[in-house]
């Protein structure tokens, strides 16, 4: 029994904290709301630290670490609201191959997954997030080696060199590596509520690409890894929100005593802690499954998404309310965490779809035969 981080993983965490501490990314998150050019470029940081090739084997120029290591980095990025394009890039490196993979691993090229949700126990189709509404859009189609279709709300596509699209051919999903600069690709940046996430809608019109060897399982794995990374970013943001909330609850006095002594405030802060520790356990579950129990990784990654999402929703609101009125002003940092929470919960299928998949996995294991349609 050893269900804790290894010494190497703790060092990785500390190194990431150091590297990310050099720029005031929280301040930049506010400035970028009015002027996106204020976002610091952290790609060099990622490349220097080897994060770009974190999940790529050494044989292909990466550092050959596992999903838990990637989650730890993502958590540190989340703590600082750092505009680090790992959610798009890292899952893309799971599917890429050959020279392009080596370029991505080295950080010479940036990748972005055009995420597609795998089928569930209720729906056989591969789908992408719709531009708006509840009806999911079909994943792009692959025909004659060319990809056509629209993918909405794609993280990290704006600056990507290679897009890894999930496109369906005769019912089978294929991963296709596409050069972003070609004529058949239109990347339309979308104004984002959280300026630290560069979001775009991507339109592919007979875009040419290299059809990769990835299987449907590999593609589903990339989706689950993306879920675990957005969850880890949320967990990091929750840690920061709790730290800041506790600090203020100790500094601020009302009626002659610290507000942290009042049960109503104390219990709310403990609720953040409870949700945070639950989410951390789920991160370890996902990390452990990714390494030692791959058959449980889908379940684990989606529970982590649900747990960390709930934690951030709660923590971001509590951070504002603990600070009182000042917490809801433009100048304060609390709204930046709130913006992160609001956008995160609605990306990559949203936390709702993740909860649905958790249920679906458990129901299938229990032998359910859901009545479809």
């Amino acid at each position, binding site marked *: *029994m*050893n*269900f*804790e*981080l*290894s010494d190497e993983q703790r060092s990785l965490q500390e190194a990431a904290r150091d590297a990310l501490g050099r720029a005031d990314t929280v301040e930049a998150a506010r400035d970028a709301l009015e002027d996106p050019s204020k976002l610091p470029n952290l790609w060099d940081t990622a490349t220097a630290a080897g994060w770009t090739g974190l999940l790529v084997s050494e044989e292909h120029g990466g550092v050959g670490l596992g999903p*838990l290591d990637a989650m730890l980095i993502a958590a540190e990025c989340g703590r600082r609201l750092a505009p680090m394009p790992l959610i798009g890039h890292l899952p893309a490196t799971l599917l890429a191959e050959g020279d392009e993979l080596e370029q991505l691993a080295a950080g010479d090229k940036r990748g972005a997954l055009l995420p597609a949700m795998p089928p569930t126990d*209720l729906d056989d189709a591969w789908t992408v997030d719709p531009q708006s509404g509840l009806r999911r859009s079909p994943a792009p189609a692959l025909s004659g080696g060319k990809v056509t279709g629209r993918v909405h709300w794609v993280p990290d596509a704006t600056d990507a060199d290679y897009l890894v699209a999930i496109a369906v051919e005769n019912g089978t999903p294929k991963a296709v590596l596409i050069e972003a600069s070609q004529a058949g690709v239109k990347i339309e940046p979308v104004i984002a509520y959280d300026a630290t996430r560069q979001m775009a809608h991507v339109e592919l019109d007979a875009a040419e690409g290299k059809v990769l060897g990835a299987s449907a399982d590999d593609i589903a794995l990339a989706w689950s890894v993306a879920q675990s990374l957005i969850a880890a970013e949320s967990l990091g943001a929750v840690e920061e929100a*709790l730290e800041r909330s*506790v600090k203020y609850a*100790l500094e601020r006095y009302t009626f002659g*005593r*610290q507000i*942290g*002594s*009042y*049960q109503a405030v*104390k*219990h709310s*802060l*403990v*609720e953040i*802690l*409870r949700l945070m*520790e*639950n*989410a951390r*356990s*789920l991160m*370890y*579950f996902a*990390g*452990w499954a990714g*390494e*030692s129990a791959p058959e449980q990784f889908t*379940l*684990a990654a*989606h*529970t982590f998404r*649900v*747990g960390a999402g*709930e934690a951030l929703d709660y923590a971001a609101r509590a951070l504002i309310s603990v600070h009182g009125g000042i917490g809801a002003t433009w100048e304060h940092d609390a709204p930046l965490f709130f913006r992160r929470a609001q956008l995160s919960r609605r990306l990559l299928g949203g936390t*709702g779809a*993740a*909860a*649905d*998949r*958790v*249920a*679906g996995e*458990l*129901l299938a*294991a*229990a*032998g*359910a*035969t*859901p*009545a*479809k349609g």
Partner: protein
Amino acid sequence: MDLNDTPEQAEYRTKVRTWLDAHKANAPGLEGPQPGHEEEFVTVRRAWQREMAEGGFAGVTWPAEFGGQGLGPLDQVIVGQEFQAAGVPGILDVIGIGMLGPTIIAHGTDEQKQRYLAPMLHADEVWCQLFSEPAAGSDLAGIQTRAALQEDGSWKLTGQKVWTTNAHFASYGLILARTNSEVTKHKGMSMFIVPMDAEGVEIRPLRQITGEAEFNEVFFDDAHIPADAIVGPVDGGWMVALTTLLFERLAIGGGSESFGYRADRFAKAIADDPVASADSDVRHRLGKLATDLLALRYTGYRHLTDIERGGLPGSEAALGKVTAVKAAIEAGDLIADVIGPEALAEGEWSYLISFLPGLKSAGGTEEILRNMVGERVLGLPTEPRLDKGVPFSELKALEREGAKS
């Protein structure tokens, strides 16, 4: 990160399995007492605990000199896991072996250890814990049961205890009583061993929402206990009680799944219904509560890792109960919403639903747990207290006055 045993643990696990293979035919069922057959239930479970003790699987962590195995908490966990996997119950006297015996080992006299520990281990004598009172739950140090010193050095007990598990078949109880009201409340208590069949001790079952009487009320009316029944120093009972509560915390390592609140169990209840299995609201609720229950499972592994490394889980471990109760309440509500009113007829789900409101307060109310965690883990200040430095007798007078106005 791995969930595997060390070679020593694997060897011990094999030993437990081997013993279980040879003995599990003698094991009683997992179900609780059937109405009208309570005595029979206790008899067979006592016999099973005795068999476990002889095999070395009761008091696993007790020192060898008191009949234990002198092993670590992780070995205790392995025993629990293997018994659960084999579908057989563990010891009957969880409170005695897990909390009260270790308290006597820590604070008792040599004579007390000689007299009481071996019969406790073998279930020849079952024990109960007499701490909570009708007016002292969260504020345990506010107990009012009095132990009055007699001229011959013996004591007379007067007062009432409540929420006493197993009192109706226990031979002895460990009781926290007030021995001095003229000092502040934490300083005037002492711990005693009381024979449950002593004159002046009356035990009444306490029925709960479920209809079952899992607990008792125990009344003391001038019950006489000898001078050598005190555990620890006179007026030093609070320290002894803290030891008991520490062992309670160590027992958390077993995790919430020992209650049977598991994601797969609740999913199975939904999976039988094809319409519910496809319903988006049902799935959403199931997904969320299952996430909480899986978080608890893996939190349990983190605590076991702490224990394996020679530590204790942090105080935040107490929040596991909050999550377990919350998720189980949501599961009961969901399953009953799917089944309809029939779920409330006597049976598995009706019992679950009726049991949980009480569990919310058991072992520390949620409010008290959140205070404790907020103060110990987050370093938040306590609320101002009105009982500091006030002798217990004055405090009670102040409370009575306050209640009148």
